């Protein structure tokens, strides 16, 4: 048994043993779970991929004469203005009014972070305290008072894989799905995935300090659509999309290598986000969880050609199979391709490990852990149908 304080003391003295979630598998294989629990203090996990539910809170500073902005565009991309006078929220998937999905919120975030000037246009209603009705200026990340990345849903704990049984090519957020089961697209980094390494949320919650977009960030709690009730295997790892995280961090100290505006063909705009989460090896149970390997992590293949909320499945596969380049469906070998980057995830896990080893990054014990009992609900049925139900009563 170790405590956060003990681990942080070791980090301070430069004595903490820190390994990535890939490396810990090798150690567990060679020496067993007990050795992992005794020897390892922190395991670094990571993920990098398109995460649509992302965005940034901005405060522009007051204009002279002042304006209460009620409509806001950044490089022609609309931002939410229903806040105080010069506050806005720019969502990653917002689409340019002039360029369509070739440019959007995700790109503005990357451009801001890269130091590029951004055109801010705003309209407001004339009032006694805010006389101006229109403003059009250039802003930069430096000119903003605050730029706080606040992502309502990131770092999915596992994710469903996608295929397409129809006769036409589909363009989805899982990328191109070729006709007649032409490919299987999968997301998440498997054994490197943060929440897969802490399947029962024993160490991750409000306050957990993380690598976010190349800088420091924090977990705020459960993300939207958090679904701890997903079916789980004996090792407690969910068998499809499950838990999620809400994350925040100061954009000003991030690095554009790890936040990338993306245009997914015939689908829309998104933001690729790089996330790294340290997991303290407090006891043997956690040592076992972090040693989970690709071959013991399963996900479900869904048929995206069926336009229903509950889609038919083609069974389960593990990440070792998915990463091998092909999986079997109905007796045929079908090529697989990822849509999130294992290359970048490995890089992030290594960087976070380095930060901790060098004594630059300490662990923060969460104030409260992620909920384990919330249920995922669909949108209520159409109004006329609920009325019908009402009549029956």
């Amino acid at each position, binding site marked *: 048994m170790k405590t956060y304080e003990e681990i942080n003391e070791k980090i301070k003295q430069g004595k903490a043993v820190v390994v990535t979630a890939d490396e810990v598998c090798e150690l567990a294989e060679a020496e067993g779970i007990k050795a992992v629990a005794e020897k390892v203090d922190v395991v670094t996990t990571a993920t*990098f*991929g*398109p995460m649509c539910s992302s965005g940034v809170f901005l405060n522009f500073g007051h204009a002279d004469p002042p304006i209460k902005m009620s409509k806001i565009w950044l490089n022609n991309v609309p931002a939410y203005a229903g806040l105080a006078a010069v506050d806005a929220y720019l969502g990653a998937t917002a689409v340019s009014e002039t360029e369509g999905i070739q440019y959007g919120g995700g790109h503005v975030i990357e451009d801001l972070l890269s130091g590029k000037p951004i055109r801010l246009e705003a309209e407001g209603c004339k009032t006694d305290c805010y006389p101006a009705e229109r403003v059009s200026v250039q802003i930069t990340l430096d000119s903003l008072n605050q730029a706080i990345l606040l992502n309502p849903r990131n770092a999915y704990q596992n994710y469903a894989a996608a295929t397409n049984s129809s006769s036409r090519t589909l363009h989805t957020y899982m*990328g*191109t*799905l*070729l006709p007649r089961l032409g*490919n299987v*697209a999968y997301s998440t980094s498997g054994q490197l995935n943060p929440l897969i390494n802490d399947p029962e949320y024993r160490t991750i919650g409000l306050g957990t300090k993380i690598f976010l977009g190349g800088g420091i960030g924090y977990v705020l709690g459960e993300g939207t659509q958090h679904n701890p009730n997903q079916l789980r295997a004996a090792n407690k790892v969910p068998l499809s999309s499950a838990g999620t995280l809400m994350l925040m961090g100061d954009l000003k100290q991030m690095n554009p290598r790890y936040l*990338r505006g*993306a*245009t*997914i*063909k015939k689908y829309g705009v*998104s933001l*690729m986000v790089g996330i790294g989460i340290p997991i303290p090896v407090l006891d043997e149970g956690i040592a076992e969880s972090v040693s989970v390997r690709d071959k013991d992590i399963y996900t479900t293949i869904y048929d995206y050609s069926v336009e229903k909320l509950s889609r038919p499945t083609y069974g389960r596969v593990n990440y070792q199979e998915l*990463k091998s*380049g092909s999986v079997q469906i109905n007796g045929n070998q079908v*090529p697989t*391709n*990822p*849509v*999130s*980057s*294992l*290359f*970048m995830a*490995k890089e992030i896990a290594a960087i976070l490990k380095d930060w901790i080893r060098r004594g630059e990054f300490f662990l923060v014990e969460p104030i409260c852990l992620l909920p384990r009992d919330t249920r995922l609900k669909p949108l209520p049925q159409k109004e006329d149908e609920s009325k019908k139900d009402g009549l029956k009563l």
Partner: protein
Amino acid sequence: MNTVTRRVVLTFPANLVEDTAIYHLIKDYDLVVNILRAKIIPKEIGRIVLELRGKIDNIKKGVSYLESKGIEVKPLAQDIYLNEDKCVSCGMCLAVCHQKALSLNKNTWKIEFNRDDCILCEQCVSVCPLKVIQVTF
């Protein structure tokens, strides 16, 4: 007359046999022919990138000959360029590259581009979410 080099892309229906055409280019038009790339998508199209070296008149005649055989000939004015510094190796382009010119290195998990296997179909260009694959002229 000087010897010149021209690079051309031949596109032909898959049922056309291109071997004899290339033989004639060498034999009848006195050209040095170097096959840079050759790919055939079964039942769809075939595509060959050739480097032709010889007298300019002979190259022109050779190209006319190919066209008379129903082969489309275009100068190779373009190439696929992957900006490796900007690529994040997400893997989305793999789904559309049937030639496997784009592939994942299973040790590093980095995307690699093998120009020799590329048939310039350009499918990957619009699929890449970061627009880091470009057609260069």
